[in-house]
């Protein structure tokens, strides 16, 4: 079978593995961030800025943004190949999808390193 050119991993197994790994990254990030938000009196501006001021947390956040983008890429790619049958519309959708994934990562990096 022809490799799927617009899928992220270009093989079913790659996509599947990436989908699982990014899901784990996202879960860890969400749990960590929620714990921070819900832990007592941490929600001051200073605490919030302190958290995002640390380099390790910036990297962790950027990795999570990338994980979210790749997770969405794979998921939305599957949905588009299930439900969008006309090739033209499908191509436009996938192109927009891929571009926005990269845009989010770059934008996210810019925001994180401006703290």
């Amino acid at each position: 079978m022809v490799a799927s050119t617009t899928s992220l991993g270009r093989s079913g197994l790659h996509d599947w593995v990436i989908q699982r790994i990014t899901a784990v990254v996202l879960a860890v990030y969400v749990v960590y961030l929620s714990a921070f938000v819900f832990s007592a009196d941490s929600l001051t501006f200073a605490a919030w800025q302190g958290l995002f001021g640390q380099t390790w947390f910036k990297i962790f956040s950027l990795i999570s943004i990338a994980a979210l983008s790749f997770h969405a890429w794979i998921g939305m790619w599957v949905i588009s190949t299930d439900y969008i049958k006309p090739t033209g519309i499908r191509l436009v959708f996938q192109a927009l999808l891929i571009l926005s994934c990269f845009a989010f990562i770059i934008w996210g990096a810019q925001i994180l390193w401006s703290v």
Partner: protein
Amino acid sequence: MLFSIYRYNPETDKKPRMQDYELNIEEGSDIMLLDALIALKEQEPTLSFRRSCREGVCGSDGLNINGKNGLACITPVSSLGKKVVVRPLPGLPVIRDLVVDMQQFYRQYEKIRPYLINNDEPPARERLQSPEDREKLDGLYECILCACCTTSCPSFWWNPDKFIGPSGLLQAYRFIIDSRDTETSSRLADLDDAYSLFRCRGIMNCVDVCPKGLNPTQAIGHIRSMMLQQGL
């Protein structure tokens, strides 16, 4: 008892219709849905459906019965409530009434090379298998290719030309795990695209309907882990 049956003859009908039939079933007696259909065919000779063994071994009479796929010959009407709605298997082109065109289903089956391949020198008598290795085929070889599972799988509805479907994948695993087959890695490689195997989303409709009680989702999981082991 009331039966509402899907009727469609593409040569004469513009579109399919559901037609009601009444059938008297003696109080206290029970029959299989297939027998009811055969009785209805006496009233209405144009009513078309497939059947052969009438005991759940040939896989010809897979139908959508009250919304769930199953074999008419092993489905007692007593289990079906007051009104029985019978439609052809979903997702395949209808040839006539309850008869569907199974080509897409068989084409997927063909892709997995459903036969033993062994490139070693043939032994003088036969290729032997230990009882333990033989046991690994249990739950796989029993598939009768009725298509109940594959036609209940949404992933197959959307991509019937690319997704192998639960039945074909169960069969694929039956040969992948067979100790006498030497093509294990090429069989795995054949399935490593975005569709053939990985379009399975674990919805488990297949497990829910299989009249032989088989578990294609589990077989799909096994194939996936074997691929992963090879790929790491």
